[in-house]
C-alpha cells in the first residue's frame, strides 16, 4: 500500500500545457496540403513525359522547386503527426512506444531533408 496521497501521485504528471499544439499543427498542415497536393497531382499529370530531361526541366522552374520543397516539408510534418497518433493509440507499453515514436520522427526528418536536398540539387543544376 502506498502512503502517497492521490494528489501527490498526479502532481507533475499532468498537462504539459501544449495539449492543442499537435491538433492545431495537424490542421494547419492539412490546410496547406490541400492546394499543395492538388498542384502536385495536376502538374505531374500535365507533364509531357517522365524522361529524366523532362523532369529536370520541370524541377528547374523556380515555382516547381519552391512548391515541391513546401510540399515535401508539409507532407512529412503532417505524416509524422498522423503516424504519431496511430502509434499512441495502438502501440502499448511506454518503452516500445517511445522507441517507435522516436524512430518515426527520425525517419520523417531524414525523408524531408533528403527530398529538399534532391530538389535543390536539381533546381540549382548541381545534379549529375
Amino acid at each position: 500500500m502506498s502512503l502517497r496521497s492521490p494528489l501527490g501521485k498526479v502532481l507533475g504528471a499532468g498537462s504539459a500545457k501544449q495539449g492543442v499544439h499537435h491538433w492545431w499543427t495537424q490542421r494547419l498542415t492539412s490546410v496547406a496540403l490541400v492546394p499543395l497536393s492538388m498542384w502536385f497531382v495536376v502538374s505531374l499529370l500535365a507533364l509531357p513525359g517522365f524522361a529524366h530531361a523532362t523532369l529536370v526541366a520541370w524541377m528547374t522552374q523556380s515555382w516547381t522547386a519552391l512548391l515541391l520543397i513546401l510540399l515535401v516539408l508539409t507532407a512529412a510534418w503532417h505524416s509524422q503527426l498522423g503516424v504519431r497518433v496511430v502509434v499512441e493509440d495502438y502501440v502499448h507499453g511506454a518503452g516500445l512506444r517511445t522507441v517507435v515514436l522516436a524512430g518515426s520522427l527520425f525517419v520523417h526528418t531524414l525523408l524531408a531533408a533528403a527530398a529538399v536536398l534532391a530538389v535543390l540539387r536539381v533546381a540549382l543544376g548541381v545534379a549529375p
Partner: protein
Amino acid sequence: MPTRPLSPHLSVYKFKYTLATSILNRFTGLALSLGFLLLVYWLLSVAGGARAQARAATLLSLPVMKLAYAGFIAAFCYHLVAGIRHLIWDTGRGLERAQAQRSAWLVVVLSIALTLLIGYGAWLAAARIP
C-alpha cells in the same frame, strides 16, 4: 502497461458506415505515408542523374507499381475529401447525426468521382510514356 481503459475502445462501438469513414481516413493516411516514401525515392532518383533515374523508372513502372499508384490515387482522393470534412467539423458545423450521415455519403461519392477523374488523367499521362 496501465490497467486503466485505453483509447480507442473500437470493440465497444456498433459498426456504422460513419465509423467506417473515420477508420478509412486513418487507413488512407497511413497508406499515403508509404506513398510519401515513394515520392522521396523518386525525387532522389531524379537528383541522382539520368542513369539513376532510368534504373528507378524500371522499378517504378513495374505492373505491381501501377496497381500501387491506383491505390495511392484512391487513398489521396479519399483522405483529401474526408480531411476537408474534418476541417468543416472543426468549425463546429455539420456535427449533428443526420448531417454527419449525409456528409459520410458525400465523402464517398466525391472521393470516388475524384479518383476516377485523376485516374483518367494518370491513364492519359501513362500513355505518353514511350
